[in-house]
């Protein structure tokens, strides 16, 4: 029988929740990495037992953790005892921007909050995206925004500096939460194509495996920019793709829910009848590419659901027409947030939808959003939710 494994990153550790295909009874394992911020945990599509976790701390910096047994045990890749003749150990935590004369030289500064230029400074890994085909290849989106890749299971990391270096880097600026590369979307139909999103720079696409990049922000409009339709500078919060239609992407921007049908060449707003189009998460039904989920948040200065009612909104028409999903969710006095990494879908026949809150709840719907129940109530603030559908 099928199983699901939900990987939850929180402010104070990681948790792994497992259930059978009914998704009614759950086992909670954790906390792992107690006391550390776990920005993201994600499994390899090529080997579901291979997991990667980003463990981070303002005191101690960035740690990459890896599991090869589905999260039962963890290791710092290459971080064990030094052994003569092997590659240098302890490199798995080392994220160093490309400063080579050929490609790194122009990548010295980005725009600071006040419009002045500011040097790039590595802070943490926001997002880990394992390759679709190789368990040892994984991409990391980091703050300050850049894309790194490991091809040795996380032991060593190298920047794909074509992203920072394509020309608009000096115009990127941090959002309120920092200047993070938080979204990495791989295209199953085209291994050379990849999408990333950065706060606050916007969305970017490569068609040659990460060597060359271009901004894909036409149609985005951001009132906090001097030029509201500028090529870059947009605070994109999340992008989601349904694998069967890789040219269709949905975006939750700072404000506005957007859609593209041409792989980002142009975007149209599909906020429609949402009560507010501010929010962080967006995801797409595993089997219905026109069924989209968002969680509206009141505003950029009030990060909680409108009217204190926690509502997921679902569109079955690819946007514009949205319906609130409330069954099983608190409909009074709820003032949690749902952060950008904290929604996921499984691929069971009856698609499961999952999201976590800053109040420490992780909710599941096993009927595509019609009804919800909590997997767990009282975790630390949830930063990320991913789900693996296991045979």
């Amino acid at each position, binding site marked *: 029988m099928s199983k699901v494994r939900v990987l939850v990153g929180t402010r104070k550790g990681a948790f792994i929740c497992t259930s059978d295909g009914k998704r009614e009874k759950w086992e909670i394992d954790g906390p792992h990495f107690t006391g550390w911020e776990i920005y993201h945990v994600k499994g390899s599509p090529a080997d579901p037992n291979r997991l990667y976790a980003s463990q981070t701390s303002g*005191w101690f910096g960035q740690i990459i953790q890896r599991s090869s047994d589905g999260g039962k045990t963890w290791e710092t890749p290459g971080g064990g005892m*030094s052994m003569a003749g092997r590659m240098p150990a302890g490199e798995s*935590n080392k994220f160093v921007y490309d400063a080579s004369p050929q490609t790194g030289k122009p990548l010295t500064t980005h725009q600071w909050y006040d419009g002045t230029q500011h040097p790039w400074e590595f802070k943490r890994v926001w997002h880990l995206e394992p390759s679709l085909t190789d368990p040892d290849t994984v991409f990391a989106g980091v703050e300050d925004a850049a894309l790194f890749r490991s091809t040795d299971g996380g032991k060593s990391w190298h920047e794909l500096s074509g992203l920072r270096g394509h020309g608009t880097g000096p115009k990127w600026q941090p959002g309120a939460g920092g200047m993070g590369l938080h979204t990495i979307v791989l295209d199953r139909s085209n291994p050379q194509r990849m999408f990333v999103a950065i706060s606050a720079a916007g969305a970017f696409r490569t068609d040659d495996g990460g060597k060359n990049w271009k901004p894909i922000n036409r149609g985005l409009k951001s009132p906090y920019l001097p030029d509201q339709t500028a090529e870059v500078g947009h605070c994109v919060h999340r992008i989601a793709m349904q694998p069967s239609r890789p040219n269709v992407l949905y975006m939750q921007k700072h404000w506005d829910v957007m859609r593209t049908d041409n792989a980002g060449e142009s975007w149209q707003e599909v906020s429609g009848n949402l009560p507010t189009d501010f929010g962080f998460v967006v995801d797409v039904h595993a089997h219905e590419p026109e069924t989209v989920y968002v969680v509206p948040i009141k505003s950029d200065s009030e990060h909680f659901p409108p009217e204190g009612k926690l509502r997921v909104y679902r569109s079955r028409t690819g946007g514009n027409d949205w319906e609130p999903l409330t069954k099983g969710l608190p409909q009074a006095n709820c003032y949690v947030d749902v952060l950008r990494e904290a929604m996921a879908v499984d691929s069971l026949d009856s698609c499961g939808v999952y999201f976590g809150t800053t109040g420490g709840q992780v909710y599941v719907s096993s009927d595509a959003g019609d009804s919800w129940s909590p997997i767990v109530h009282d975790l630390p603030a949830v930063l990320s939710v991913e789900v693996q559908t296991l045979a």
Partner: protein
Amino acid sequence: MNHVQVLLPQHLRTLARVESEVHLEIDGIATLRSVLDALEARYPMLRGTIRDHVTQERRPFLRFFVCEEDWSHESPDTPLPAAVSSGKEPLMVVGAIAGG
């Protein structure tokens, strides 16, 4: 050969998988640099957690205490006191207080 004790904050003990203080043999003069080099050689997972990977500067929210004195701003090449290089007193790596 000097024998130096290092006291790590709890999170780094967990990361290095050590229960209590770390004992290191230092060949030559014991300094902050030589002790941290030896610590990171034995526990590579600690690289980058106390000092920056590239600059080798102390991370801003960590401090070094030695014989009841703050050595956070000492030169990394200053010889540590005899009480530390002989193992009688530990080098303490301490997470700075943040928040309240």
